[in-house]
C-alpha cells in the first residue's frame, strides 16, 4: 500500500475505523462542512482512493482490538485515535472526545506533515535538542520506513478474546445451541507480525554494555553528562528527570557517548537503582517489540527470578518468569502456553536480557527445548523423578539443595486440586 505526502491542494482521503454508521455520519457531516485549502474526504465516499490517514475509534465494542487489527493491516498508515479516555501510552496521537472540528483538522494536517505535538519537560538545551531530534526521527521513521523484510518479522500467536455476546433473545432450543456454538471462545489464535528493535543500539544498548563492564561511567548526550552509573553499588545518578529519558530511548547511538567517572557529581536530579533503570529503559526501548536476533525457535531460559517486587512492572511478568525459570522454552511455546500478550512478553525479554538474567544462546540447540510442539492440556512434561538429581544436602555445603519441585506444566489430570489453586489465585489477585 502506498501513502502519498499531501500537498496543500491535495484531496486527503481518510479511512474511518471502528465506527458505526452513527459516528460515521457525524464525521461525514464535519468533513462536508469543513472548507479550507485542503479538502478531506471519507474513504467510503471516495472509492478507488488510497487512504492518506486513518481515524480509529477505540470506544466501540471492539475496543482496542479495532486499533490492533487496523495496525496489522496498515502498519505504515498515519493514524489518529479518538477516545473518551486517552491512555498515557497511546500508540498514536489521540483526540479526546468530544471531537472538536477546530482541533480535528489541524491535528490531521499535523499528522500528515509528520509533526508531533510534544510538550517537552523543562530541560537543558542539549537535552531539548536531542528530544526534538528523537521526535523527528520517529516521524521520519513513520514516513520513510518500508515494510520489514520477511525474515525480520516474527510470526506468533496472539490470544484473541471471544466476541462480545449479543443480547439474549428468545430462541428455539436448536437455534440456542447454534448461537452458543457461534459464541464459543475463538480457539484458533490470530497470527500477527511483530516489529523488532535493536537491543545493541541507542541508550539501551550503551547502558547494557556499561552495566556489564561493571565499571563506573558517565553516559553523555551530545557530549553533555546525562547520567552516571556505578554498577558495583547498583546505583545510577540521573542528571535529568527520569521521565525525560523515555524520549531519549528513540535516539540513535551516535548522540550518546561515555566518559570515565572519577568523581560522582555533587548535584544530580535523582538516584535510582541501576538494575531498575536498565529494566525501565528496556521497557521504553522495546515498546513491546521483539529483540533483533531472537527467533521464534530460540531456546530461552531465565537464570533466576528478577526482583519483581521492586522492578518497574510488566504485565504477566510473574507468569512468564515462572515458566522461563523452569525449563528452556521458545517463543512459540511461551505464547501458546501462557496466552500472554506478545507485547508484554517482548518487553519482559528485553528487560531480562538487559539485566543479564536471560540465557539466550546464539546457536540454537545449546539449550534443549522441552518441545517445539504446543503442549496439549493433558500432556505432562518430564516428571519430577526424571529431572536430574541435585546434590544431597550436606552440612558443609554453603546452601542446601533439596530436590526440585515438580515441573511447572502439570496437566489438569495431575493437578487434582487445580480448581483450588485457581480459586486461590483469583482470591489473592483480588486482595
Amino acid at each position, binding site marked *: 500500500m502506498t501513502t502519498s505526502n499531501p500537498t496543500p491542494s491535495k484531496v486527503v482521503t481518510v479511512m474511518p475505523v471502528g465506527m458505526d454508521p452513527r459516528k460515521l455520519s457525524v464525521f461525514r457531516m464535519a468533513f462536508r462542512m469543513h472548507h479550507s485549502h485542503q479538502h478531506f474526504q471519507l474513504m467510503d465516499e471516495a472509492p478507488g482512493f488510497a487512504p492518506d490517514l486513518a481515524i480509529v475509534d477505540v470506544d466501540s465494542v471492539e475496543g482496542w482490538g479495532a486499533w490492533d487489527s487496523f495496525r496489522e493491516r496498515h502498519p505504515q498508515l498515519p493514524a489518529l485515535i479518538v477516545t473518551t479516555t486517552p491512555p498515557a501510552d497511546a500508540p498514536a496521537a489521540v483526540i479526546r472526545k468530544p471531537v472538536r472540528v477546530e482541533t480535528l483538522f489541524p491535528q490531521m494536517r499535523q499528522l500528515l506533515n509528520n509533526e508531533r505535538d510534544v510538550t517537552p519537560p523543562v530541560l537543558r538545551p542539549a537535552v531539548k535538542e536531542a528530544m526534538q531530534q528523537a521526535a523527528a526521527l520517529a516521524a521520519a521513521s513513520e514516513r520513510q520506513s518500508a515494510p520489514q523484510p520477511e525474515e525480520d518479522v516474527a510470526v506468533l500467536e496472539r490470544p484473541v478474546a471471544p466476541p462480545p455476546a449479543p443480547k439474549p433473545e428468545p430462541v428455539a432450543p436448536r437455534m440456542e445451541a447454534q448461537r452458543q456454538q457461534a459464541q464459543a471462545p475463538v480457539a484458533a489464535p490470530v497470527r500477527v507480525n511483530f516489529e523488532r528493535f535493536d537491543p545493541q543500539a541507542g541508550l539501551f544498548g550503551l547502558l547494557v554494555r556499561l552495566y556489564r563492564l561493571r565499571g563506573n561511567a558517565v553516559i553523555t548526550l551530545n557530549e553533555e553528562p546525562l547520567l552516571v552509573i556505578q554498577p558495583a553499588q*547498583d546505583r545510577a545518578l540521573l542528571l535529568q528527570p527520569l521521565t525525560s529519558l523515555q524520549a531519549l530511548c528513540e535516539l540513535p547511538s551516535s548522540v550518546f557517548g561515555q566518559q570515565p567517572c572519577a568523581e560522582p557529581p555533587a548535584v544530580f536530579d535523582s538516584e535510582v537503582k541501576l538494575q531498575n533503570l536498565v529494566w525501565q529503559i528496556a521497557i521504553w526501548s522495546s515498546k513491546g517489540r521483539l529483540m533483533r536476533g531472537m527467533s521464534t525457535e530460540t531456546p530461552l531460559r*531465565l*537464570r*533466576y*527470578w528478577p*526482583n*519483581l*517486587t*521492586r522492578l518497574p512492572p510488566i504485565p504477566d511478568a*510473574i*507468569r*512468564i*518468569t*515462572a*515458566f522461563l*525459570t*523452569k525449563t528452556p522454552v521458545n517463543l512459540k511455546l511461551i505464547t501458546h*502456553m*501462557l*496466552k500472554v500478550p506478545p507485547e508484554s512478553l517482548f518487553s519482559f525479554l528485553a528487560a531480562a536480557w538487559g539485566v543479564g538474567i536471560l540465557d539466550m544462546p546464539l546457536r540454537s540447540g545449546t539449550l534443549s527445548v522441552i518441545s517445539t510442539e504446543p503442549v496439549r492440556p493433558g500432556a505432562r512434561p518430564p516428571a*519430577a523423578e526424571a529431572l*536430574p538429581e*541435585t*546434590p544431597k*544436602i550436606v*552440612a558443609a*555445603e*554453603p*546452601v*542446601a*539443595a*533439596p*530436590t*526440585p*519441585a*515438580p515441573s*511447572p*506444566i*502439570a496437566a489438569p489430570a*495431575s*493437578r*487434582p*486440586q*487445580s480448581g*483450588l*489453586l*485457581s*480459586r*486461590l*489465585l*483469583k*482470591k*489473592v*489477585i483480588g*486482595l
Partner: protein
Amino acid sequence: MRAYDNKIIFAGPVGAGKTTAIGAISDIEPVTTDAKASDMTLNRKGHTTVALDYGVLKLDEDTKVHLYGTPGQERFDFMWDILSQGGIGLILLLDNSRPSPVKDLQFFLNAFRDMLKIAPLVIGITKTDIKSSPSIETYAGLLEKFDMRPPIFEIDARSREDVKELVLALLFSIDPGLEG
C-alpha cells in the same frame, strides 16, 4: 497424586516477619501465640511466636486456605515437619539484618527438605533497607549452583502487595498457566 491440605507455610528465623506477613493477607485477625521472649530472641524482639501463627484465606463458605507461621526458634523444629505435610508450598522469609542470612537459608532449606521435594519454595527477603547485603543476586547465585531457581523477592512484610506477590509467585511456580 499429591493431595493438598489447603495450607501455605510461612517459615523463617525469629523476627523475619512471618506473623506480620500472614496478617497482611489473612481474612481474619491472625491468631498468634506470642509470649515474652526469654531466650536469645530477646535480643531481636520483645515478643515472639512460641507455637504458631494462623491466618485464613476464605475462598468460599466451605473452602479455606490456611496460613501457618512456624515458630522461628530451632527448639520448635519438631513442629515444622507436622505443619508442612501436605502444604501447597513454603514461603521462607529471611531477615537480611541478621548476622548470617545465608546460613539461615541453608538451615531452613535443610529443615524443610522433605516438603520441598514435592512443593515449591518462594523466598522473601526482609529488612533490606537496614542491610542490603546479601543481594538478591547473591542468594540466587548460590541456589543456582544447585539448579534451584525459586522466586526471591525483596519484601516489606507489612505490605499486602509484597506478600501477595509472594503467594502469586508460589502459585505460578506450581503452574505458570494457572488462571483465576
